[in-house]
């Protein structure tokens, strides 16, 4: 089992590396492998330097961070709701964050085609985390009736998601075209315009949260056994569930702050990982992180290049891949 895990991790890592290179190479301005290595060694032209370090590298790192945090959040949610199909996008956490950001954009921009101001950019992660926590609080409060029934948590989440999306639509329609396009980025999830600023802000938070989840992964394993067994083994279910929900919210919010509302990514990675290495979180989470990173990077490369110079939000590309898989999972589960 152990060998299999290392093998799987190794293969996933190699894949990630390959797609990392592919993503660096391809784009409106195509580079060659030699140019990339030269640039990394400090011998490239100024142009190459800008393309790699200014544009593509921060974007790739953002993608990996988003993939990592969403898949970890997915792992957590699937355990604490006892539903294989749970993930942060579907139960409205991402939508809460997106709504907060849309409100921020709507309240802060005056001119039609204005770029976002610096303080708006710096406020975004904070606001989106607040938004996700607001949504989580709403879901938790509404599904609380003599404790949390896992199934109810999901259903309430779907309802809250629908409600938040209706409010987002209202703001969307009242926006000018320029604002609308910026808001669209958040609503459908895109890595366009990632910069080092965002990466520096989000990377420490995300690594900390993932580290905490990983540290407590044994508790997640126990939760999987069911309420009675877990309580028998000395886990305070309500308390742990709340803690893990907090972690999931933090992760989903940071990911949304980086890239907007990306659905289904938190589903794909954990599931594929589980099929390969089994339901032990110590092994599942790292593999899920790598797989999700591969998926989002691949999807982002595709959305940048498929209809170039137009770009499709990566969240949309992922839904198009993710839903058929989701349906397949549902059909198989029967």
């Amino acid at each position: 089992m152990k060998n299999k895990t290392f093998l799987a991790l190794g293969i996933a890592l190699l894949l990630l590396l390959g797609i990392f290179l592919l993503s660096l190479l391809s784009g409106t301005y195509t580079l060659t492998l030699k140019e990339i290595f030269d640039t990394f060694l400090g011998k490239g032209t100024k142009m190459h330097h800008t393309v790699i370090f200014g544009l593509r590298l921060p974007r790739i790192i953002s993608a990996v961070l988003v993939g990592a945090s969403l898949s970890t959040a997915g792992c957590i949610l699937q355990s604490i709701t006892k539903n294989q199909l749970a993930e942060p996008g579907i139960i409205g956490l991402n939508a809460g964050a997106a709504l907060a950001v849309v409100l921020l954009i709507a309240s802060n921009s005056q001119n039609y085609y204005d770029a976002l101001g610096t303080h708006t950019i710096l406020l975004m992660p904070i606001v989106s985390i607040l938004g996700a926590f607001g949504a989580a609080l709403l879901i938790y409060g509404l599904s609380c009736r003599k404790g949390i029934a896992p199934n109810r948590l999901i259903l309430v989440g779907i309802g809250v998601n629908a409600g938040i999306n209706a409010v987002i639509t209202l703001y969307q329609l009242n926006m000018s075209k320029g604002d609308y396009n910026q808001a669209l980025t958040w609503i459908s999830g895109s890595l366009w315009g990632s910069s080092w600023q965002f990466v520096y802000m989000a990377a420490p938070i995300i690594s900390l949260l993932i580290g905490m989840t990983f540290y407590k992964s044994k508790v997640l394993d126990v939760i999987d056994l069911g309420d009675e067994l877990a309580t028998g083994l000395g886990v305070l279910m309500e308390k742990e569930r709340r803690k893990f929900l907090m972690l999931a919210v933090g992760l989903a919010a940071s990911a949304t702050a980086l890239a907007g509302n990306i659905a289904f990514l938190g589903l794909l990675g954990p599931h594929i990982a589980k099929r390969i290495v089994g339901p032990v979180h110590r092994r599942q989470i790292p593999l899920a992180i790598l797989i999700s990173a591969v998926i989002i990077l691949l999807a982002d490369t595709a959305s940048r290049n498929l209809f170039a110079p137009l770009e499709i939000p990566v969240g949309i590309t992922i839904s198009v891949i993710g839903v058929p898989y989701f349906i397949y999972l549902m059909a198989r589960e029967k």
Partner: protein
Amino acid sequence: MNKKAISLALLCCIAAAAGLIVAVSAGAKNIPLQTVWNSLFHYEDILDMQLVRNGRLPRALSAALIGGFLGISGAMMQGVTRNPIAEPSMMGITQGAALAVAALSAIPRLYGLFGNTLAAFIGAALSSFLVLLFSMQNARNMNLSRLLLAGTALSTFFLSLAMIIAMLSNKSQELAFWVGGGLRTAAWHSVWLLLIVGGVCTALALTLSHRINIVSLGEDVAIGLGENPAKVRVFSILLLIPLCASSVAVAGNIAFVGLIVPHIIRKTLGGDYRLIMPLSFIGGSALLIWADVAARLINQPYETPIGLFTAIIGVPFFLWLVRKENG
């Protein structure tokens, strides 16, 4: 029992009629009732009368018809699948229609050939065929959360594809209007479309109601009573497709009407679909007429998306329902 049904029907009728009067006379420009009356029976070619006759009247009538169709299709779906959250927008039908509209509007030649409403109708029919085939067959084996998850997934999928098409043809905000739903484009030809297509289907659906009653008792009971549930399901799907398609073609994506109305009516009258279905029709009409009035009046002269109002009522209602079902 019957007294209750009659009084409820009367109440809904009065609400709908009052709504129609308000819808025709109030707006960005308030028109006195006298003029409204004259524009119907002593028509002169002045602005106010044109407004009533060609703008507000068809719009209000469309709202009434669409609300009715949504109500009755929700009732039918819930009866046949025995699943309390079955409803066109929850299951991804309206979103599938949005995809079809986006796809057709991106091809100007086809678009010009079919016109807006007809294009939407064809698209909606196709997509509701696919969705219903998928989820109605599975709906009876699924518990609440599975059907809902499937619906959410399908609607995300359709909207994502629609978004790609809209972005490539630079029409994303137009698409958002469509997803938000609304009756801005309702005209006389949409009323005729609704009346002919939907009217026939509603009548047929009402004749089917006693068989839906039997199916709603459960698979085994229905077979025991000599009814073939699969057959009733197929008939229902065949009627639901044009009902959903014509509503979506005129008004876009309007959620929750088919969820709220049949539930309230079932709650007050019990599980007899011979009563639930016609009353859902009237109740849905009243609800949507008033929602459209609110959409026009609250932020006048601008319009607020009507889907927001149905969601404001629908989401809390849905949450309450979920808490109860899982209690």
